[in-house]
């Protein structure tokens, strides 16, 4: 997507919230929802449109765990380390992910495919330990399950690539 175009989209998204009260965080949610993180240029657009100082935006962005300033990668692995999950051994699951992906919590794999993050309580403690990958929840995860989970998403990615390739081929074929 061209830079200007995406900035326009951001501008529009922010406009929706502009006149509502207490909506800075909502607008930021919306932008992160679109890009997975909040780039500098987009933060500037928010500042402009909402009439708040950029300093305020960054104060907020860096205060809340939820917001990211850098692209986190395609598949976000959120591992719960809330109390229930902790007691049921989430640390060893984290270790397993770390080992398998060779990254630490809060990091992204060099190929930008996986981002590993620790979150606190996803609200399904009954299933502890809990892992969520791009919205899909895995309950009662043990370190042994980790390779399968990663594999599942790698396959998904391969599928995406393949269909993209196919599409390309058909496009080329058509042309």
């Amino acid at each position, binding site marked *: 997507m061209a830079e200007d175009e995406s900035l326009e989209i951001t501008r529009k998204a922010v406009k929706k919230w502009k006149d*509502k*009260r*207490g*909506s*800075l*965080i*909502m607008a*930021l*949610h919306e932008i992160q929802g679109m890009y997975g993180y909040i780039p500098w240029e987009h933060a500037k657009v928010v500042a402009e449109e*909402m009439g*708040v100082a950029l300093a*305020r935006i960054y*104060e*907020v962005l860096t*205060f*809340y*765990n*939820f*917001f990211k300033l850098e692209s986190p990668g395609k598949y976000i692995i959120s591992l719960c*380390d*809330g*109390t*229930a*999950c*902790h*007691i*049921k051994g989430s640390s060893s699951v984290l270790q397993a992910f770390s080992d398998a992906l060779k990254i630490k919590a809060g990091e992204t794999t060099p190929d930008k495919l996986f981002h590993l993050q620790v*979150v*606190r*309580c*996803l*609200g*399904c*403690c*009954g*299933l*502890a330990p*809990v892992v*969520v990958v791009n919205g899909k*929840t*895995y*309950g009662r995860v043990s370190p042994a399950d980790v390779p399968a989970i990663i594999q599942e998403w790698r396959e998904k990615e391969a599928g995406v690539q393949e269909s993209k390739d196919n599409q390309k081929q058909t496009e080329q074929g058509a042309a």
Partner: protein
Amino acid sequence: MVENSDELNEKLKKVYEQQRQNLVKMKEEFLQKKDSYEAAIYTCNSTGCNSGGAGNVIDAFRHSLEIYGLQDRVRMVSTGCMGLCANGPLARIEIKGQKPFLYKHVDDMLARLIVAEHLVPALMLKKGETFEVNSFLKEKELSLELPFFTKQRKVVLESLGHSDPEDFGEYLANGGYQAFLKVIDTMTPEQVRKVIADSGLRGRGGGGFPTAKKWELLAASAPVDGEKFIICNGDEGDPGAYMDACILGGGSHAVLEGMMIAAYATGATHGWFYVRAEYPLAIQRVELALKQAKKYGLLGKNILGSGFSFMADLRYGAGAFVCGEETALMESLEGKRGTPHPRPPYPTEKGLFGKPSAINNVETLANVPVIIRKGAAFFNSVGTETSKGTKVFALTGKVKHSGLVEVPMGTTVEEIVNEIGGGTSSGKPFKAVQTGGPSGGVIPSQMLHMPICYEELKKIGSMMGSGGMIVMDQDDSMVEIAKFYLSFTVDESCGKCAPCRIGGYQMLQLMNKIAAGKGNQEDVDELVEIGEVMKKASLCALGQTAPNPVLSTLRFFREEYEALLNKIPEEESKKDDLPLVSPPRRECLPTGCQDCSACKTGK
């Protein structure tokens, strides 16, 4: 004034009349429809079961019903949390005239089987015949006679496992908005506050502040620019607690109704739901409730012609535990960093956007419609002298029946853990439960008979908190648990005030040192010294309570700390000490040498 205001009034009156009739109609339509079914499948569609695959289960049920042509005879209901999340996905079969039957760990295969082997034959029964499920299905039964179900007393959670939270008609049919209508039609705000005062309801968000008192304060504050706010605190950042998530997800209308009553009782003009962003289901349900309420005229100007106007909005958090604290929450709603600020001024004088505001917890608000509907006596007849009503807990950790439970205040730890919870999941001896999350403390096994209420918990250095209850068995290290909570609060400290920011970090360093076997007696003394000062000198309750897990485990399990001391000799332990504050870094200034002599010393 409009000229023909009489005419207009007449018209409006008709509109309001129509709106009221609509509500009655919705309710009746629902009841009629419900009555037309012979049976129902209730599938839990709350976060826990959903992540276990409840979505597929529901699809499978639907599909099977169609195959057997039962879709018009069996009602499918996606419910809120049924409570025993650890055994999810759960599905309950209710057939008219037969005992309800609960299945655990349902997957799509089992769902098809249930339709084929349970529903189909059971629906074909002739008068007088009885039906027994086969042995395979029997194995999947979760007995409704379990103490987990029978020992609870569900008030707030009552409808959660029994109704579809998205069905507005069903909420109305279960008595929904009756309390609100009663209040706006027949009661003065004073009367409402009186009922709440009589009920003895106290805040369920942690502090246990009497709700009526808070409302009195807000009612007494003059509106600023014509506005006063009521805020629903759905931040629930306590790790291991998810009561509010389920209450909002499964009963958002009840919370909204509670908020509307609170608004009427206090003169609030606008409401705000502040919900944790990590709770998509809760967010979705609150959004829906707001939409439905608006659509049916329950929110807006001059609601149903009562003269009472109220609107409400939804905002998300963004991952900060401290935003559960009232003043931080308001900062966050204003689009700022969630840093607490000193009180006074109290929110009820100068709150959100500088306007008087009262903040109530989700569960607190959910109790309100019930109290209004059933009366103060219904509520205050349950509980202890000073803690009335029931309390919802998220019972987790090493407990057999992990899930959401609701019990009368004053229920003992023993009853909750051993009876309702069915003892430890490992079968090993029970060691302690932690209440109050990162702000709370432990209740050791020797205090099993302690009744759970605000005062008792405070006495032993813990607190009610929002209702997390973590069970630990013999294998769990208390030092580890305390360290875990401390690392949580250190992560979540807003970092504004020195005692909490630095004190918490120092305590955590000491805990790490002790846990690694490098600690000594002085370190333990230092822990206490810092902890005691944090309690007094921190600005907000996060810092004031952050040392609780350490101090409380030190009180009851000191021997576990002592066993870890001096395990590794001092010289050895010094090796991997952290460096001191990093050396100063000077730069040769562009205007020339500043005589810092860094170039000479090579630093």
